[in-house]
């Protein structure tokens, strides 16, 4: 019987199978609600292809007026939906009072809905998009408009510490896949009305919400306009991760180096926003982009600020050293063994040469082989299920490395160099930067194999030119080292005491350069003396 009914309706359906997306989209935009409830419900189901997650609950308001709730399965808060049903089906004294005139019915219903927000619309396309946020739609027979009730309940995983960015000291919160939750995490940390959040929708099919947060009055307006323009220019079907956005808005696409900092830590984003940067939140991913980002930021971790200053400075300079090792060490080793043996003390040189005895490959082949092997191991380690992850490290690192040395295929010195480089590479806190360093390293190894240290010098010169030419939303990538900005060096390779870092980064926070009152160095003894003397005066 029911099937028969549908078949009868089919000719009415304006959406035929041979229409493409844009035609369907235009058709849906044109559709309006009619007065007939059943017709409206049918249209809603037709445009979504009778998908099973579009739930329809038919009921009668005050046991008389036919109506229906439409919502997406699993996106709504069941309690609120039940509350709506209860209000409309049972507590309907008001409906009886207003029943005389139909035009009053709408306001009567609106009064009954005990939800955060109620909107009315007659456009079917808009209804559907609202529904996909988790809103519930109320269609009433005889009414050409529908009520959109906010019943959003985003089911998301809990806020836990991000695996990729752990710290010893500091908050244990991490972003989740829900945009609203992420923005809440920032709002809790910066509780002023000047924290502005602009939202836009990108992606013709995914309709992804992209929000960017900044402090009005601190972030540079020109930079914001530039960012807004770049985001608005994006015309694509879907944004599934922050990487999509990153590639669309970069200043220079032909570079290995990340020009936006991706993080899962709310404290990192808050600190960036407080310096005048912008956080770009993308719905559906826990990774938030910080823009603009300079190279030194990629070598900083939140711990640096939470630990005491000397400790923070120490670990930070250690990280710089590790980054330099991870880029240059294999190339340096190759050039020393190939060209500049005299640089090594004799005893060490003899050791290295002896360990290379009988190795069938040239040193650069050895290094490249082991480096590539290590990269494969690393990649395999990420993809493997956690349960067999340790197995690969044992097989890869211990068995392969040990066996390769025993068999005399590679020399122990090369294994040491590759292992040292790998460990140094992992101390870079941001993965996208670590991988850039890794790729650059291969270039340096090859240059070193051909021209020795001076080939590496050539590579360094090209690298410096490239890095100095990069910009992130107009901010030079190597700031504050190139261009050199003395006041920002307080928070670069080393970190000055918190009471001493009174200024924001010069290029980014120029609208409000002072972060705090300068000269807040604690003088406990002196303060106490002042108080005492003051007290004495009072006594006298």
């Amino acid at each position, binding site marked *: 019987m029911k099937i028969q009914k549908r078949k009868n309706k089919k000719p009415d359906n304006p959406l035929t199978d041979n229409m493409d997306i844009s035609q369907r989209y235009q058709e849906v935009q044109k559709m309006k609600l009619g007065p007939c409830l059943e017709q409206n419900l049918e249209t809603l189901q037709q445009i979504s292809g009778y998908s099973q997650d579009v739930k329809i609950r038919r009921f009668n308001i005050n046991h008389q007026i036919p109506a229906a709730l439409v919502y997406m399965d699993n996106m709504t808060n069941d309690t609120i939906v039940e509350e709506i049903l209860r209000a409309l089906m049972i507590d309907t004294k008001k409906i009886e009072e207003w029943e005389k005139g139909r035009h009053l019915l709408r306001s009567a219903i609106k009064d009954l809905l005990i939800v955060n927000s109620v909107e009315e619309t007659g456009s079917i396309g808009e209804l559907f998009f609202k529904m996909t946020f988790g809103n519930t739609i109320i269609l009433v027979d005889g009414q050409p408009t529908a009520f959109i009730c906010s019943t959003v309940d985003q089911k998301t995983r809990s806020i836990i510490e991000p695996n990729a960015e752990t710290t010893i000291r500091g908050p244990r919160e991490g972003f989740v896949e829900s945009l609203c939750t992420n923005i809440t995490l920032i709002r809790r940390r910066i509780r002023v009305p000047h924290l502005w959040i602009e939202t836009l929708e990108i992606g013709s099919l995914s309709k992804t919400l992209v929000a960017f947060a900044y402090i009005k009055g601190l972030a540079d307006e020109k930079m914001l306009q530039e960012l807004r323009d770049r985001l608005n220019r994006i015309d694509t079907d879907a944004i599934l991760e922050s990487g999509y956005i990153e590639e669309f808005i970069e200043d*220079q696409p032909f570079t290995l180096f990340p020009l936006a900092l991706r993080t899962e830590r709310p404290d990192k984003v808050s600190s960036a926003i407080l310096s005048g940067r912008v956080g770009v939140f993308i719905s559906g991913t826990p990774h938030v982009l910080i823009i603009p980002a300079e190279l030194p930021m990629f070598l900083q971790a939140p711990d640096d600020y939470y630990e005491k200053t000397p400790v923070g400075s120490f670990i930070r300079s250690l990280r710089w050293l590790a980054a330099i090792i991870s880029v240059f060490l294999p190339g340096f080793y190759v050039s020393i063994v190939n060209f500049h043996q*005299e640089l090594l*003390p004799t005893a060490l040189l003899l050791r290295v040469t002896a360990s290379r005895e009988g190795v069938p490959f040239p040193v650069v082949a050895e290094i490249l082989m082991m480096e590539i092997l290590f990269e494969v191991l690393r990649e395999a380690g990420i993809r493997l299920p956690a349960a067999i992850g340790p197995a690969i490290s044992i097989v890869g690192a211990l068995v392969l490395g040990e066996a390769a040395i025993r068999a005399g295929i590679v020399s122990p010195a090369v294994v040491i160099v590759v292992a040292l480089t790998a460990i140094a590479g992992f101390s870079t806190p941001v993965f996208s930067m670590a991988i850039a360093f890794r790729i650059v390293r291969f270039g340096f190894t090859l240059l070193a194999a051909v*021209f020795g240290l*001076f080939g590496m010098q*050539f590579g360094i*010169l*090209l690298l410096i030119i490239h890095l*100095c030419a990069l910009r992130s939303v107009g901010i030079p990538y*190597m700031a504050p080292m190139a261009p050199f900005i003395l006041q920002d060096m307080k928070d670069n390779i080393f970190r000055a005491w918190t009471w001493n870092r009174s200024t924001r980064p010069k290029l980014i926070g120029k609208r409000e350069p002072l972060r705090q009152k300068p000269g807040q160095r604690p003088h406990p003894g002196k303060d106490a003396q002042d108080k005492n003397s003051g007290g004495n005066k009072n006594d006298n």
Partner: protein
Amino acid sequence: MTTENFPKATTEKIANRQFLYMLFMMRTTVVIALLPVLTSADAFQDAWASAIVSFFGAALLVLIIGGLGIKFPELTAVEYAQKLIGKWPGKAVSLIFILAFLVIIATDTRIYAEALVTGFLTETPLAFIVFMMVIAGSAAAYSGIEVIGRAADLLFPIFVAMLTLSLAFAIPDALAMKENLQPVLSRGAGPVLRGSMVPIIIIAQYLSLTMLIPVTNQPKKALGTALWALAGSSLVLILVTLAVTTIQGPDHGSRLVFPFFSMVRTLNISVFLERIEIFALFAWGFGIFIGVSVFMYCGTRAMSQIIGLQDYRPLIGPLAVIWGTFSVHSYQDLFELRTYFQPRIVIPYNLFWILVPMGILWAAYGIRSLAGGNPNEK
């Protein structure tokens, strides 16, 4: 890479600090590579006095070169030459700058290549090293003067650290052999003055002022900045001369090819660190790079303004080939390169580059001022 990724040449600006670093490194590198030997060739143990004298002589030439730039803070020499003496004569005079930059680039890269080939890469063909430096320099010039400025910011500390460490480790040896400096000024002022001629005339490098003053943030102060850079590199020259003449001895020091690096080679910091001169050479190479890329920028920019191109970048490729080839072919070997720095050759060349164009332009400026009216207006 496309040109649109880089800012227009006319909108680029560098800080005066970066300008200072560029000028300091471009002069110091050449000075420490070759000059102690040349000064001591005439002045022997009094070479340090020649170094002091050279500061004053060079400062005078800097005033001649940069003085007009201050009068036209917005314009490069090519532009104000056309304003002062007319379009075509101005362009013709500017060609001398191009010639000067060509020879300076070729010589600087050649010095770098020779230093590597004599000391380290004895089997590598010279052309490889020359073209490596030319490619690196062209990449920098292509990225624009702002980028060169930032690279100078990055490399300057490395360069200065190298100089400071080398000189600091030389102090004990130098003190032990300080009798090499005696007798002081025994042969009168003549040899001292003669010895200072070459370091003075090498200031032709500062012809880059003519192109760089308008891109600085504060062009009015640029001349002062240039004098500070000159003072800095003169100080380095004095210290290096003292170190080389004491440690190597005035006779031996004057015969060495790269006296500074030979001196660093003799230093023995600890049992573990031997042969550290390679790092000195490394840092020195960074300085050469900054100098070469600045000259390349100036040369191409001047060329583009002479032929009336909007953007100088398309010229870099063809000119790079010319620079590289010139660098490889204009000197037979290291000894010919040293011959070029003999006073009887280097002085006429460099004086021609400095005095002819600047003389004409100053004269035109003077006549226009005397004739009344503002020479800044056409």
